[in-house]
């Protein structure tokens, strides 16, 4: 017994020492990294200055590029062809490694921790800003001029500015402006058949749905659940309809019931405590009473295929132009007489902006030993047409060809369009259109024109904001619970007395600590708007 005790205490001490050492080591390395990263580049610059900024590429370097998703069949074939080019141009090879879609968040973070990769795909939906803040990515400001001549010369500085976190650049965006504007997909064939209005406002959407209901009572109308509404903005999908009414800086307003208009992003107001909110909730109740959605909508499971299978006549939440295109393609294949069309909320409110630059971007790991070469290769991947075409479309003649209209045409199942999942390497000047892109391009042209007219032309203001909620995590999750319990039935119109339910919701959400969240959020948001000049 005594022995075991002794052994146990020894083990405990040992584990304590190890954990301390591990923590200490980690702190050291990360601290060193932050300080060290600029230093070697500075020394490198000074030694390089006499040679007039031609980086030394005499040593062959093997780089790893970590990308999302699954590998294409012909990964190796394309990689071999690519490496032949890269060896010539930068004396480097690239090995693409794929995250797969299983547990990718965890694996992405592990990849950053273990530091096995050099180049890595990054995006706002992978928490780019937070990761950059924590020192995972290398600072690129000083490297660009020397290693990436094309990026330095050709890339729009406003794009690069959007990728800056705390004033420093950690990622290189792609250069293809994309509009992921949210809106409503609806059945154009049904609309035309029953001669109904285009659902481009709250009233018209109501008329469209009621018209279908009158003419064909069996047709499902909206398949709305709480499925697309997991954030802190809305609790029930149908509440997205309200976006027709408000020119907010981002769809559904800011989190915690706050809102700000796109034209005055720094002027934040409290939507949940406004009269508008009460009226909107009365409107939602009216819709629910008219039977626009099921009485059991709150407990229904989210059916992503409802629209594709024709069990609903419009989708109001979680939509974007690309999803509508997917529905159109699906209809052409399985239901040739069905037609889908798309109305962006922004077409009514006038607030349209492209996806944020960090939607698809590339970073270099802070732990990479070959940051210079990695950036050189990235420069080639983005701006060298031969290299870019190869990685985006595969080998000309084997995997794809360009048809008479200049459209991309796939030749092989083994390597499809952008099959390396390198959405971050899209170059607006080289990007080959696909046949199905015709409608998409029409939409984008339309949105581009609208976006140019806004106060901040073509800037996605909210997209670059990264909220740090560590200080009020408890309140935040309490608010989220209250939203699910009290706001969801309210927005689903499933309450008897709206005024009473609104009062109850306001009380509960106040008890949950909404004021703390709002205050802290406002402070951070104001600082962000200030930094980027969004007045």
């Amino acid at each position, binding site marked *: 017994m005594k022995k075991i005790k002794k052994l146990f205490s020894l083990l405990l001490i040992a584990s304590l020492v190890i954990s301390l050492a591990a923590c200490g080591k980690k702190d050291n390395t990360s601290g060193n990294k932050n300080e060290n990263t600029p230093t070697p580049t500075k020394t490198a610059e000074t030694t390089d200055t006499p040679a007039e900024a031609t980086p030394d590429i005499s040593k062959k370097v093997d780089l790893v590029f970590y990308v999302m998703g699954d*590998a294409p069949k012909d990964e190796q074939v394309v990689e071999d062809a690519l490496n032949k080019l890269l060896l010539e141009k930068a004396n480097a090879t690239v090995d693409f490694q794929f995250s797969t879609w299983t547990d990718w968040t965890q*694996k992405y973070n592990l990849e950053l921790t*273990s530091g096995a990769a050099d180049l890595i795909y990054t995006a706002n939906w992978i928490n780019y800003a937070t990761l950059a803040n924590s020192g995972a990515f290398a600072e690129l400001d000083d490297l660009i001029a020397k290693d990436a001549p094309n990026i330095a010369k050709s890339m729009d500085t406003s794009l690069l500015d959007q990728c800056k976190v705390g004033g420093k650049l950690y990622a290189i965006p792609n250069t293809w402006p994309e509009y992921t504007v949210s809106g409503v997909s609806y059945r154009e064939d049904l609309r035309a058949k029953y001669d109904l209005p285009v659902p481009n406002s709250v009233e018209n959407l109501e008329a469209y749905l009621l018209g279908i209901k009158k003419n064909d009572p069996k047709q499902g109308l909206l398949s709305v659940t709480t499925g697309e509404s997991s954030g802190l903005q809305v609790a029930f999908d149908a509440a997205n309809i309200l976006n027709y009414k408000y020119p907010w800086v981002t769809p559904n307003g800011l989190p915690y019931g706050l809102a700000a208009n796109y034209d005055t992003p720094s002027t934040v107001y409290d939507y949940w405590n406004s009269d508008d909110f009460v009226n909107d909730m009365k409107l939602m109740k009216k819709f629910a009473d008219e039977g626009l959605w099921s009485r059991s909508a709150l407990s229904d499971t989210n059916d992503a295929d409802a629209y594709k299978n024709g069990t609903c006549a419009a989708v109001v939440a979680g939509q974007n132009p690309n*999803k509508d295109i997917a529905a159109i393609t699906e209809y052409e294949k399985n239901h040739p007489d069905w037609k889908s069309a798309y109305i962006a909320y922004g077409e009514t409110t006038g607030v349209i902006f492209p996806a944020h630059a960090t939607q698809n971007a590339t970073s270099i790991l802070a732990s990479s030993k070959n940051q210079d070469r990695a950036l050189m290769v990235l420069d080639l991947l983005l701006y060298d047409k031969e290299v870019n075409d190869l990685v985006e479309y595969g080998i000309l003649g084997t995997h794809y060809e360009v048809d008479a209209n200049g459209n991309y045409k796939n030749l092989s199942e083994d390597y499809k369009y952008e099959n390396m*999942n390198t959405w971050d390497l899209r170059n607006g000047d080289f990007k080959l259109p696909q046949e199905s892109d015709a409608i998409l391009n029409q939409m984008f042209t339309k949105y581009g024109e609208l976006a140019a007219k806004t106060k901040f032309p073509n800037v996605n203001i909210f997209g670059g904001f990264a909220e740090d909620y560590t200080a009020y995590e408890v309140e935040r999750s309490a608010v989220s619970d209250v939203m699910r319990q009290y706001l969801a039935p309210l927005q689903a119109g499933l309450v008897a007395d709206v005024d009473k339910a609104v009062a109850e919701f306001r009380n509960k959400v106040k008890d949950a600590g909404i004021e703390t969240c709002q205050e802290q959020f406002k402070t951070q948001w104001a600082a962000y708007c200030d930094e980027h000049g969004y007045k």
Partner: protein
Amino acid sequence: MKIKQSGSTIVFKVIIYILLTFMAAVCVFPFIIIISGSFTDNYTIITEGYGLLPKNFTISAYKTIFKAPQDILQAYKMNFYYTIVGTGIGLFIITMTAYVISRPEFKYRNNISFIIYFTSIFGGGMIPWYLMYASVLGLKGSTFAIWFPALMSPFLVILMRTFIKESVPDAIAESAKIDGAGHVTIFLKIVMPVLGPGLATIGLFLAIGYWNDWYRSSMFSTSSKTWELQFYLYDLLNATQALRQMAQNTSVSTADLPTESIKLAMAVVATGPVLLFYPFVQKYFVSGITVGAVKG
């Protein structure tokens, strides 16, 4: 002559039979629904829901799965490889360890048992575990990294130790020693032959663990050629889901993604072999677990 059963026994039996039938039904129904669903037309599932018998019978889901059979066959092959290699080597190492720490003449057996036991309560955590294999040992991408980490588990070692202590009295080993047998002979000739049920139990635990694992592929595979079967199937589903959500990032064609019926068919394909295998070793499984439970 028949023994007459008293009224209470009959009532008891009736209740037990009803209860067990009900429990069995609860276990079996989901599986029947999966099988019938895998033979049902996808559109029917979406519009009418699942049923016990397939409506609009079709084998198109299986056709889709086996359309490119080389992928799934490769995954099957790798799964058999991992299961056989892992179970074989694991069984050998576990048994040897258990034998050593069960020998009374081994002075530090309790200390070593404790250290083994200790790791089952205090683990290093996922990140050190990953870094160890991926960065320190540099095994990322190799098949070794997939079967090696699961060779031994503290629970199985302790189970095996209890089993050896139960079935091999010290006296037998001692008498063998007097006859001039060394440890290797004692282990191979005396201990191993009486360990049948123990080996079957531990082997089944290991084999099922290997057969059902997907996590290590997820962590360490860099090419789909080394994927385990479960990961291959799991990733198909995840890719579908992710691509639906990601439709905003890329203009993928979502038309050929797996549908409801294909998901169900995949579940059938993945569980099939285990179902066939299970009844034959089940009796060992039960006896083995009770040994561990009572005396462990």
